[in-house]
């Protein structure tokens, strides 16, 4: 706990110093990021300490008087797991940011960026360590706010402002409309804001309360986590944020939603089966829709943002299985599901962070994230290509990287779910399996497209310059990549850490729990064996190939010749003839057009000597354009009508209204028109009339209600009243 406090203090110092050194932005950048890095590392150490040793409930109460609630911190397994995730990613991102932002020195207020970065980090750490409702909400909102400012960093560009606005509004609506009432209910039941008291207070809760709590948490935290259809802010905000921020957003900020949900579940007693089923459905929808939308994107960061939605869906699948397991009292299932979800939280943070950083390196290098314009980057920046490849293989859940590990656990949980016939007698888990398989295949298609088009082949635009990537950025990415590989190859080092986080969720007695989880996760050890085998096979084949080629070289021509790509007879292939990303994805997009509703603008080549042809496809987000936009617009229009007392929401000139009033159309209409015009012009008489009416209404209400109150209330006043009334 002291470690956590130290890292918080360091972050505060970092923010302060970088603000103080506004005059020397470069120094501010270096110092601020240094502080952030050290703080993150310390946080990781603190978390690792808890995770490796058995979960120690160390609650710390700070002597810091808040206006409400108490500053109570605690670090249990769950917190530690997320703290570790945050720390690892944040450390790498802070290394990455130094060279990335140094290019902006002079043009942008970099010190402010550093301060906000430290603030966001502090809010995240505080959030996962908070053991008091008010402190939790406080850091939750501070996180939202700092993240908003960071997203809005390049606020000269309108799309940036729009993205930031969407993020702010979406998350705040989710928080205020669902999370705050959620904690209101918890507080009302527990009578205090201490987390420790919630679990006990909910022990006797009835079914409706539990369902209400779960629903509130699902929507409220789901908005931050990006469940469909509350995901709208992700594809809007992720791409426009500075790359380090996008990495943090997708890696950990989104995960805080998951953390909130899990924290809530850790208090709730086993929920009704339907909750798990609903969550499983949500997970399937988010996952499949997310990856489908990702397929249809043409911008690197947009695509990655939608993949975040997909992976959140996968995590939701894991949690759902955990819920089902708890509901049907199948500890193994609960353990499997929760463990898989938790593992995927961390893994996703790692490889998605890596992917965002690598994408940022592409932007940094060639100034655009439009996939169609890029190409052949693997020759110019091989290191970055390798990093992106690692990330891509990991996010597709392919062995032997970390992505496979967590998806494997989740698969396992789903399979055993339907083996045990849980959830529509095992049907729902089966659906989950199919969906997960589909997601895997589609993700593979998507990243084959991205990597193939962006990094392989030949550059599509000659104009695009690419300058090399600074060492700092390479180091950060290499660190993340290393984590991805290590976790995938040596699960035996990694998987045991998740035990103490899982025990918080799956309410199983400790002894039984450990046997369960070991039995469940033991096969994971076999994966490293398979990995070794795989590497051996590769090595053998390499040797074979080398041997064969050298023999061939000795025998005849010499070293392997290099020629132009075989164009099937066509001899002058140009870069523009390469298969584009849209055409690569088109066959899948058209297959799923019933879900995606892609828009296709096509200008066919015309004339006997066609000069130009143009085809463009987009997949507008349904939730944004079909769900939220209409609602917002409708509400605004309605309010405008009320405000200006006129149809169609804009105020007409009162003269018109008067002339309408002048027409003799019977008293009612005339009066109403006169009233409306008076209202519209806000004349003093009408306003006074409001006062009078309010008075009259109040007294009428009282008169009506006092009739029965005479009988109900005690005290001789009313007897007196009645007697006097009689005497008169």
């Amino acid at each position, binding site marked *: 706990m002291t470690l956590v406090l130290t890292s918080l203090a360091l972050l505060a110092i970092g923010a302060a110093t970088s603000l103080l050194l506004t005059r020397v932005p470069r120094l501010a950048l270096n110092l601020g990021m240094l502080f952030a890095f050290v703080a993150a590392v310390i946080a990781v150490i603190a978390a690792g300490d808890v995770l490796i040793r058995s979960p120690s409930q160390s609650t710390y109460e700070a002597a810091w008087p808040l206006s409400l609630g108490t500053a109570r911190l605690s670090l249990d397994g769950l917190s530690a797991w997320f703290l570790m995730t945050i720390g690892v990613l944040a450390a790498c991102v802070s290394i990455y940011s130094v060279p990335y932002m140094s290019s902006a020195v002079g043009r942008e207020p970099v010190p402010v960026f550093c301060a906000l970065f430290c603030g966001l980090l502090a809010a995240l750490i505080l959030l996962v360590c908070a053991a008091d409702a008010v402190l939790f909400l406080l850091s939750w909102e501070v996180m939202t706010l700092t993240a908003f400012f960071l997203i809005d960093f390049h606020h000269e560009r309108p799309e940036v402002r729009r993205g930031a606005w969407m993020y702010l509004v979406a998350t705040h609506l989710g928080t205020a409309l669902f999370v705050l009432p959620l904690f209101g209910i918890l507080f009302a039941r527990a009578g205090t804001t201490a987390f420790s008291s919630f679990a006990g207070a909910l022990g006797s809760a009835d079914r409706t309360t539990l369902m209400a709590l779960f629903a509130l948490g699902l929507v409220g935290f789901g908005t931050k986590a990006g469940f469909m259809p509350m995901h709208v802010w992700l594809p809007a905000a992720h791409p426009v944020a500075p790359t380090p921020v996008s990495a943090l957003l997708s890696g950990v900020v989104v995960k805080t939603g998951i953390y909130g949900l899990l924290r809530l579940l850790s208090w709730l007693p086993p929920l009704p089966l339907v909750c798990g089923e609903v969550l499983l459905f949500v997970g399937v929808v988010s996952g499949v829709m997310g990856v489908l939308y990702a397929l249809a994107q043409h911008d690197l960061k947009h695509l990655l943002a939608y993949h975040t939605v997909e992976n959140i869906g996968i995590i939701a699948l894991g949690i759902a299985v955990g819920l089902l397991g708890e509901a049907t009292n199948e500890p193994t299932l609960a353990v499997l599901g929760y463990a898989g979800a938790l593992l995927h939280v961390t893994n996703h943070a790692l490889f998605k962070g890596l992917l965002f950083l690598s994408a940022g390196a592409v932007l940094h290098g060639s100034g655009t994230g439009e996939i169609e314009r890029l190409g052949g980057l693997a020759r110019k920046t091989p290191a970055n*290509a390798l990093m992106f490849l690692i990330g891509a293989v990991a996010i597709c859940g392919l062995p032997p990287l970390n992505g496979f590990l967590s998806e494997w656990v989740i*698969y396992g949980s789903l399979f055993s779910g339907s083996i045990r016939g849980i959830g529509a007698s095992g049907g729902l888990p089966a659906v989950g399996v199919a969906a997960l398989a589909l997601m895997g295949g589609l993700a593979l298609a998507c990243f084959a497209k991205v990597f*193939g088009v962006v990094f392989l082949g030949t550059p599509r635009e000659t104009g695009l310059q690419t300058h090399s990537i600074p060492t700092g950025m390479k180091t950060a990415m290499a660190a993340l990549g290393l984590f991805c590989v290590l976790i995938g190859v040596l699960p035996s080092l990694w998987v045991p850490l998740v035990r103490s986080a899982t025990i918080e969720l799956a309410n199983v007695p400790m002894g039984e729990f450990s046997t369960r989880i070991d039995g469940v996760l033991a*096969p994971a050890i076999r994966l490293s064996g*398979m990995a070794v085998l795989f590497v051996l*096979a590769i090595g053998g084949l390499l040797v074979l190939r080398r041997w064969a080629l050298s023999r061939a070289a000795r025998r005849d021509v010499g070293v*392997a010749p*290099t020629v132009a790509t075989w164009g099937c007879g066509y001899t002058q292939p140009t870069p523009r003839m390469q298969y584009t990303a849209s055409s690569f994805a088109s066959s899948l997009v058209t297959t799923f057009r019933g879900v995606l509703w892609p828009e296709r603008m096509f200008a066919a080549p015309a004339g006997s000597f066609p000069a130009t042809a143009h085809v463009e496809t987009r997949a507008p987000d349904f939730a944004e354009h079909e769900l939220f936009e209409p609602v917002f617009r409708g509400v605004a229009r309605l309010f405008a009508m009320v405000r200006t007392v006129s149809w169609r929401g804009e105020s007409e000139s009162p003269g018109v209204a008067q002339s309408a009033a002048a027409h003799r159309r019977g008293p009612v209409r005339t009066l109403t028109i006169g009233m409306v015009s008076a209202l519209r012009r806000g004349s003093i008489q009408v306003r006074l009339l409001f006062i009078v009416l309010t008075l009259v209404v109040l007294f009428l209400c009282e008169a009506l209600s006092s009739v029965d109150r005479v009988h109900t209330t005690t005290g001789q006043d009313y007897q007196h009243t009645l007697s006097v009334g009689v005497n008169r």
Partner: protein
Amino acid sequence: MTAVRAVLFVPEMLVVLALPPLLMSVIAKTKAWFGGRVGPPWLQPYFDLHKLIQKNAVYSKTTTWIFRAGPIISLAALLTAATLIPVLSNDSLLGFSGDIILLAYLLALGRMFTVLAAMDTGSSFEGMGASREVTFGAMSEPALFLAFVVMAVATKSLQLSEMIGPKLLPEWQIAGPAMILVVGALLVVLLTEACRVPVDDPATHLELTMIHEVMVLDHSGPEFAFITYGAALKFTLLGSILVHAAIPHPEGFNVLSPPLRVLELGGLAVLVGAIESAMARFRLNRVPMLIAGATVLSAIAVVLVLMRRTV
């Protein structure tokens, strides 16, 4: 017992690794027979491989190390997968609980790198092939996994060698229809993954209509040998899953079983050859229907099995 098993695994592995080209030539022979031709000699595929190994490789100058890594990684993935799949006996070398998922994803890994190698050449034809490959691959995954669900539910196990082993025998007696559906789905998956008619025609000479073959246009020499062998191996592995699921052998090790398996695999090859000669390739936009059909089959199978289990 286990010691015997362990000793016996070595020859088994060797047979498994030697078998694939033979199956290829079985298919070729069948097609030739249907065409009233004699067809290539039985060992032709081996000759081809030998020839390719001898040859020197030619590389396009747009390619990077990915292009060279592609065939190796995909073949390595297949070899790794081979250790998980029971081919001749009822038992696999290194099977463990949950290995089916690893198996499926190893195949996916192979696909990923084949596709990337194709994209690396920057040729529009190979891009086309890659696009089709990932499309059909992605669509066939659910069918495969739903089939796995059926077997898992039936055998209460997540280890391939058990799921398609003797434990499946009672299932055939209780829920025959479901198993038939599953086998059908698996057959479609096999045809898709191994790029056979009606999904893909390895023998066509028009690049525009190819899927797998067009992806490997630029490969040559030993790497092309790896690819050819890999395709055959993939066919063998998926085929043996199909065969084991279709014709479960009884518990325990008996001498007759391995040769029987070889024969069954040969029979499967003949069947595939017959299909290839009997029907033409589907139009590309019809193929998704076929695969979706397979998914539906296995979904129905899942429903049947679960229903049967709850009542």
